[in-house]
């Protein structure tokens, strides 16, 4: 059974990645959104360097939060509508593990490119160069957490016709710790202080999310499919 579970896991991961690749124009949308939101802040406040610099980590992280949340729709929606999700739940393998495969695939095509985009946004926001590495590190730890938590919310709302607004209401409060610690890690690093505490905290939350979120998502999907 074990060997078969890993086969199913990899098959699902590959399938989701292949499907994402075939709709690659859709993949760019959350990334454009990510850049666009960051761009709005200088326009809405002022192009002053000092102001933008202090806001940079927070603004980039808020944009990452919103982009990641809006991209959740691709996680289950299509599979829900064409019945694939129902078939997946019927498989003999634990749904939580299969869901984890889908979440990883989703993160690889949405969260991961956001990490690569971060240096560009850092330039937009005048983030000092030495902060870029830490920003990317926090994004690397934080965005998987966003995908995992978001999957629970998506699982709960996938069956609803107008779930979008509701999803944000459910998911955003749960994103707050990631935002606090990530943005703070970058700021603290720029102030030449140790950031080990923040990074450890983010990693702890990531471990917690990997262990519990797939189970909660699986439960949520079963409810939505009824």
């Amino acid at each position, binding site marked *: 059974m074990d060997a078969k579970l890993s086969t199913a896991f990899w098959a699902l991961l590959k399938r989701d990645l292949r499907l994402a690749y075939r709709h690659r124009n859709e993949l760019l949308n959350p990334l454009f959104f990510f850049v666009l939101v960051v761009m709005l802040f200088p326009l809405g406040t002022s192009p002053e360097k000092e102001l933008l610099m202090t806001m940079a980590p927070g603004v980039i992280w808020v944009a990452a939060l919103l982009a990641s949340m809006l991209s959740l729709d691709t996680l289950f929606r299509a599979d829900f509508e064409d019945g694939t999700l129902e078939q997946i739940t019927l498989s003999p393998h634990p749904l939580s593990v299969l869901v984890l495969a889908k979440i990883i695939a989703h993160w690889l095509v949405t969260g991961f490119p956001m990490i690569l985009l971060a240096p560009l946004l850092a330039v937009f926001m005048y983030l000092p160069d030495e902060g870029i590495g830490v920003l990317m590190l926090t994004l690397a730890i934080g965005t998987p957490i966003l995908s995992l938590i978001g999957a*629970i919310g998506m699982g*709960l*709302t996938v*069956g*609803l016709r*107008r*779930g979008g607004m*509701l999803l944000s*209401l*459910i998911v*955003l*409060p*749960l994103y*707050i*710790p990631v935002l*606090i*610690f990530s943005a*703070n890690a970058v700021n*603290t690093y720029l102030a030449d202080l140790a950031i080990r505490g923040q990074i450890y*905290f983010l990693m702890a*939350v990531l471990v*917690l999310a990997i262990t*519990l979120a797939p189970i*909660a998502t699986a*439960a*949520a999907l079963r*409810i*939505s499919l*009824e």
Partner: protein
Amino acid sequence: MKLPAIVHKFSSPRNFYVMSGKLIPWFAWPCLILLVAGLYYGLIEAPADYQQGESYRIIFIHVPSAWMSMMIYMVMAIAGAIGLIWRIKMADIVASASAPIGAAFTFLALVTGSLWGKPMWGAWWVWDARLTSELILLFLYLGFIALQASIEDPRNAARAGAVLALVGVVNIPIIHYSVEWWSTLHQGATITKLDKPSIHISMLIPLLLMAVAFKLYYAASVLMRARSELLKREQNARWVREIVANES
């Protein structure tokens, strides 16, 4: 794990309806008495604070509300879990009946805190850790209510809500500590809470009276809400028709 038969017996809709109808006065009347006593001792008998003057008196509403806001979320999550695991319909109903009451207490705690903050801190709102946590808690309640409201089938709504409430319970300590940590870093010495001496007995008694009164209020109102929800859900059952026929 199986629940003892008595639990199922008590939680059958009809028994619940009859029992809770008898229980409500036992919660409501003591609640009223304690509320009047607590307000009397709190607003009239208790001395003014040596630092904050009269305006500290809002704590007799504010602190019990804040306690209730957290307690009700826990009750909601536990009831939701019971409904999810043992499929007890009454637990589902209690969970969803609790949410608006909890949200109302959270709102009350925020508003009274803000009213107190204006003369004390000079601002309606301060990004203090507790205020922020409480605001996030309000959004957790609102998310729960909105999710349940948008799912038509009551059974599925209850289960989805229970999952969300449990996720919230895991997250509340994380959110709470991260916000606390955030505010200690972000807030310098501009606004610090006045170091209050430990509370005097003449202020503690009304505070405890109010806390108990609020708990009784919650018990009475959650049962009332659960009863009316029960009648609505079971409207086609014979026992409901009998009750309605008897009462009208």
